[in-house]
């Protein structure tokens, strides 16, 4: 329990960094020859959470920990750090094949952005079942006979996770800011430290308030991709204003507004806004920021090839799909371009289309994943 708490605290503070743990086979409870086999990546926090859920629910099973380079399942799979080879290796080298009679492995659904169920099947004879997005849904999922409800398939961005994300940014930021301040402006270390915690929290917690605005305000700006960092039009402007307000308030309270102070405060606030703006580089609330203009891809369906098999429904973390004879995308607006549906489609019926009309075929996405800063857009 202490270990669990410690890992969660460290994991939350250092959310932006990989935290690897040992790979291999773990027995949960007292598994037998027909017990289910679950597989996950070797991100310490994930492994602890999955283990805890499985242990608490009393499911006797095997848990395979594959090498995802210490990164969480979604990021590692979409970024090309958690591949078919890692899953094949876990299945073949852990000795699980000698322990169970069946050949079914439950993979986390979010791994679908990088791991191909088809290839795993061909090379190992194991069939992949896409499990729920969140570990907490595993017991329900098992009870339902390995079927997911739409809710189990969907990635949400609830308050708890927004706080986690805020901490992920606040912790390293505050340390950088405090270190800088320690050398440059010692008396301001504490207020700046606190401020660099407040800002991310403000941004993430108020996300529902302005998320609607962001979706609507899809203006086509033809500026360079770097405009967002220096774009003081939206969120950063609000921040700059709040900085100035704080400045005025401070001045009013202390009656101390020297030029030197103004200069320092101006510089510090600029650095802070810059730091927080890095967040807009696609990491979170504002994921469709201008920095990723060239990556605002659209998923397109080739209706000729689609057979309505429904794999896309199973792997889409935003519940975009419905099957009506063939696949339909009634909620395409929610798509986050993770590419899972394209990677998994057994008939190559899905592909990406870039804003300038270029087509990115499934082979390219399977090969390059989402990593390399949009390098899969490279003409092949």
């Amino acid at each position: 329990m202490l270990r669990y708490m410690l890992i969660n605290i460290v994991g939350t503070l250092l959310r932006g960094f990989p935290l690897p743990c040992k790979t291999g086979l773990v027995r949960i409870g007292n598994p037998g020859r027909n017990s289910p086999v679950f597989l996950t990546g070797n991100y310490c926090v994930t492994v602890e959470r999955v283990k805890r859920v499985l242990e608490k629910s009393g499911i006797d099973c095997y848990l395979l920990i594959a090498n995802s380079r210490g990164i969480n399942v979604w990021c590692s799979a979409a970024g090309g750090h958690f591949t078919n080879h890692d899953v094949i290796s876990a299945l073949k080298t852990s000795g699980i094949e000698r322990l169970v009679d069946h050949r079914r492995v439950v993979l986390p659904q979010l791994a679908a952005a990088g791991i191909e169920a088809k290839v795993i099947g061909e090379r190992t004879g194991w069939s992949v079942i896409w499990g729920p997005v969140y570990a907490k849904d595993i017991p329900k999922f098992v009870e339902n006979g390995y079927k997911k409800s739409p809710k189990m398939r969907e990635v949400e961005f609830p308050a708890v996770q927004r706080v986690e994300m805020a901490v992920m940014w606040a912790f390293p930021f505050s340390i950088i800011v405090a270190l800088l301040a320690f050398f440059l402006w010692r008396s301001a270390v504490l207020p700046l430290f606190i401020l660099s915690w407040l800002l991310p929290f403000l941004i993430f917690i108020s996300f529902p308030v302005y998320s609607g605005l962001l979706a609507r305000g899809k203006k086509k700006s033809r500026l360079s991709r770097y405009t967002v960092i220096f774009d003081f039009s939206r969120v950063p402007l609000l921040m700059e204003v709040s900085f100035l307000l704080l400045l005025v308030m401070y001045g009013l309270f202390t009656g101390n507004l020297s030029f030197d102070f103004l200069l320092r405060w101006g510089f510090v606030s600029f650095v802070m806004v810059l730091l927080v703006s890095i967040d807009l580089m696609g990491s979170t609330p504002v994921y469709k920021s201008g920095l990723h203009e060239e990556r605002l891809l659209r998923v397109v369906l080739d209706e000729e090839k689609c057979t309505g098999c429904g794999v896309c429904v199973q792997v889409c973390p935003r519940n975009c799909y419905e099957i009506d004879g063939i696949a339909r995308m009634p909620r395409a607006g929610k798509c986050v371009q993770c590419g899972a549906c394209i990677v998994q489609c057994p008939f190559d019926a899905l592909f990406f289309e870039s804003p300038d009309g270029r087509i990115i075929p499934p082979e390219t996405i399977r090969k390059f994943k989402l990593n390399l800063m949009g390098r899969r857009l490279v003409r092949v």
Partner: protein
Amino acid sequence: MPSYVLMRILESSPDRYDRGVRILTLGRLEGVYERLASRIKPGQRVLDIGCGTGALTIRAAMRGARVKAIDINPRMLEIAGKKIEEVALTHRVELCEMGVAELDTEAAESYDAVMAGLCFSELSEDELCYALREIMRILKPGGLLLIADEVVPRNPLKRVITLLIRLPLLLIAYLLTQTTTRAIKNLPEKVEGAGFIMESMRLSRMEDFVEIVARKPGG
């Protein structure tokens, strides 16, 4: 040679891999690979596990062997492919995106030699055991296993010194690429434990790098 830690950084951008490795290892790796490849004879069938950009593969092919080179990184393989084309050896080399876990698809006793340059240190304990078992199976009797890799020194003092040199390098590599490398513990014992006969072993002065030539019994 703790500088192998820094190869993690280079691996993240295969285009710069070769040049970087040469600088980092001050050309020492070249010597190691030359010595290992000198064991290969013309006409032999050779498997290169974790070929990377093809350093060992090309050396073996130049000596007249037919080489199958496998790696799990498609971009590394692309570069290896280009380099092999440049030296006009494509007819002798087969490149394949494949990990050690897929060695079970290779036929038994089908190779004269198996090479692994800086590959085993990337494997987990389970994977290494599995790889050694499979290599034993696919080698012809009397076939050679050639290894060059980072190991944990046996001498406690040297272990501490290497650790001290490695730590800052590990930190740099981690900060830049968020990856890390592990030196292998007891590699010679593991190779012998898998049933190989040690033919020669060459440790670096700091005991942190090893070249192993091992033989499958029989032949």
